[in-house]
């Protein structure tokens, strides 16, 4: 994985010093809260319900054991012994003091980490496929391109005060494991007929209150023009993106209002202009970065055979592993969704264990997944049983990947100052209900996603089953929706009808799964059955 050189380290160190100085000026009264807020947000520091919250970047979801140990140490030293892994492959801490924030950033800088641009109206942490560099189906490892873009977007002088936040996602396989088309810009690295590498640009996707799936605006940008093209996309957005209404300020609204053709025309015009401006790093820079992402020293000729005589282990292998490009290896997923647990939360102790497993069994590499789980990308099949035993003993061996218990949930009204309703208790009740009724395995792949407000951090628009918490006359109420997907078949979910209270929505989900079990045909997932039979049979079961 990538390692800082003296330049990268100097930049992160300068940022720590800058933020320490900004905190001082805030506490001394030289900065008002209105002036300070955008600055602290650009360092990931929010003010939430109970305290400050710090979001730490995990660029494209990749980290090593030393970094994970540091994340655990920060949880113990500055927080309350745990952290929350997010849908954009970051981690956030819920109980941070402003006085400690600069010290935390200084600790992070010692392990080449930071909280740069994890919030604010700037280019955010760049997300990617969590199985990059490991997946059997990828064209090329997308992370070098993401790292090139990370450097380009860090402290960008022109794009630090955009109309609104800006999220990039870079993937490189047909299968989309990163909700690529629901980002402001989704880039798919691919090869053309001549075998040349380039980038397909999808611009104007997003969730939030106006969910949109991004259209393709350029099928193939040569890889040595990637940065220039991104710069053109951003400049047109910075020029025309709406500033009068924050709910209409995302690029998806601009692309929608201008029309894809006009937006594209303007980008191409700007791109032609920028091609002469020398903004593109030389190809040698990409090559330099690529060298850090070379394959680890995989053993050759390993067998793919596995002793599955332990049924619990066999189940975990079946649900929680993904095919690897190297024979004899898999990517294994550590579920942070124990039955009745808080989705995405991990204790410092668990983080230390996960770090040790990465060191011992996965070439010192970990992945934070947008599904709020942790991946061990390069695991020898022969080591799986030992890994699973250790995970199981630590309460991390839940075999539920992509099943209903593996739901995404935002922090909701238990922590978040924007939320209208709690998300976590709904997640917990659904998890417990389906554990008790034993339907999870029979239901198979069923992606349930819960957001506590319209901002959609819990990706409810993209859930096979989505739940949105709203405030109805001071009471928590939950709208149910079906048919969303954030995979390569991206679609937006449709609302079933009137909302439910907390227990009501759990019942409703249960009933909906009965409709699916009754109606499904061979091999159909919940999503497929819904797409085939439509909303009516579900509505009948929910509202009669």
């Amino acid at each position: 994985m990538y390692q800082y050189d003296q330049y990268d380290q100097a930049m992160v160190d300068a940022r720590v010093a800058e933020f320490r100085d900004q905190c001082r000026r805030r506490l001394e009264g030289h900065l008002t809260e209105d002036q300070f807020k955008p600055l602290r947000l650009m360092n990931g520091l929010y003010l939430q319900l109970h305290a400050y919250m710090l979001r730490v970047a995990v660029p494209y979801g990749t980290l090593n054991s030393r970094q994970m140990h540091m994340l655990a140490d920060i949880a113990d030293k500055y927080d309350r012994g745990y952290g929350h892994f997010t849908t954009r492959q970051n981690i956030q801490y819920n109980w941070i003091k402003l006085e400690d924030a600069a010290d935390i950033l200084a600790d992070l800088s010692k392990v080449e980490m930071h909280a740069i641009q994890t919030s604010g109206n700037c280019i955010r942490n760049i997300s990617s496929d969590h199985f990059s560099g490991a997946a059997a189906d990828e064209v090329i490892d997308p992370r070098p391109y993401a790292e090139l873009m990370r450097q380009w977007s860090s402290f960008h002088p022109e794009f630090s005060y955009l109309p609104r936040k800006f999220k990039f996602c870079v993937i490189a396989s047909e299968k989309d494991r990163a909700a690529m088309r629901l980002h402001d810009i989704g880039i798919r690295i691919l090869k053309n007929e001549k075998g040349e590498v380039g980038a397909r640009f999808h611009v104007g996707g997003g969730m939030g209150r106006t969910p949109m799936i991004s259209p393709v605006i350029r099928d193939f940008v040569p890889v040595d023009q990637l940065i220039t093209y991104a710069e053109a996309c951003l400049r047109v957005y910075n020029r025309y993106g709406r500033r009068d209404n924050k709910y209409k300020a995302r690029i998806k609204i601009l692309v929608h209002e201008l029309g894809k053709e006009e937006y594209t025309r303007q980008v191409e015009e700007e791109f032609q202009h920028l091609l002469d401006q020398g903004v593109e790093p030389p190809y040698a820079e990409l090559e330099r970065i690529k060298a850090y992402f070379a394959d680890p020293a995989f053993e050759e000729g390993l067998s793919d055979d596995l002793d599955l005589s332990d049924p619990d282990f066999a189940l975990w292998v079946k649900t929680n592993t993904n095919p690897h490009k190297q024979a004899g290896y898999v990517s294994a997923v550590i579920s942070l969704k124990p039955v009745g647990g808080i989705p995405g939360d991990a204790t410092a102790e668990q983080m230390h264990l996960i770090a040790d497993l990465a060191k011992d069994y996965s070439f010192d590499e970990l992945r934070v997944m947008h599904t709020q789980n942790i991946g061990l990308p390069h695991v020898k099949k022969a080591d799986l049983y030992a890994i699973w035993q250790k995970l199981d003993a630590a309460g991390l061996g839940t075999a539920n990947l992509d099943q209903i218990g593996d739901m995404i949930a935002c922090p909701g009204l238990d922590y978040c100052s924007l939320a209208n309703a709690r998300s976590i208790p709904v997640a917990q009740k659904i998890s417990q209900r389906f554990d008790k009724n034993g339907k999870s395995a029979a239901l198979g792949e069923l992606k349930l996603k819960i957001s506590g407000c319209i901002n959609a951090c819990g990706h409810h628009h993209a859930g096979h089953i989505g739940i949105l918490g709203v405030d109805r006359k001071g009471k928590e109420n939950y709208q149910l929706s079906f048919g969303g997907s954030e995979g390569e078949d991206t679609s937006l979910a449709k609302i079933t009808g009137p909302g439910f209270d907390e227990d009501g929505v759990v019942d409703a989900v249960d009933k909906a799964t009965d409709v699916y079990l009754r109606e499904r045909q061979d091999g159909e997932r919940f999503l497929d059955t819904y797409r085939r039979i439509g909303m009516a049979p579900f509505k009948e079961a929910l509202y009669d």
Partner: protein
Amino acid sequence: MTETAPENHVQFRFRDDAQVSDPAVTVDAFLGQTNAAAVRIEPGDDARQLLPHLDRIALVEVNFPAFTDGRGYSAARLLREEGYQGELRAVGDVLIDQLSHMKRCGFDAFAPDAPLNEEDAQAAFNRWPEVYQSAADDRQPIWALRHKG
């Protein structure tokens, strides 16, 4: 509405030539008359309208009514990319923590509404030991330093 903007005090200036004291006119007024040498860009203005006239402009003021509105960064950088050599002055809600980015986008004069603490401002101008991008200043990006020679 007046066609002439109020005068701001220039607190920081990185030019050797004499400061332009002509009152800056609005973009509309500038395009409608031929003799103005100073023009003020508001956030909604399209700086590209000035491109045919760059050779007769000595001062462009870019107004930041709110520091969070970043359109002026693109306007400034574009003018520099198109060869504008005159003074480029950031005016309005110009604060310490935006100075270095503004300078990178080509601003060479700063006239904040409220005077800034000198020491803090100098620290801000000197904040970044290196830079990751090529922009409108003459700093070499990190990628260029890495692949020198």
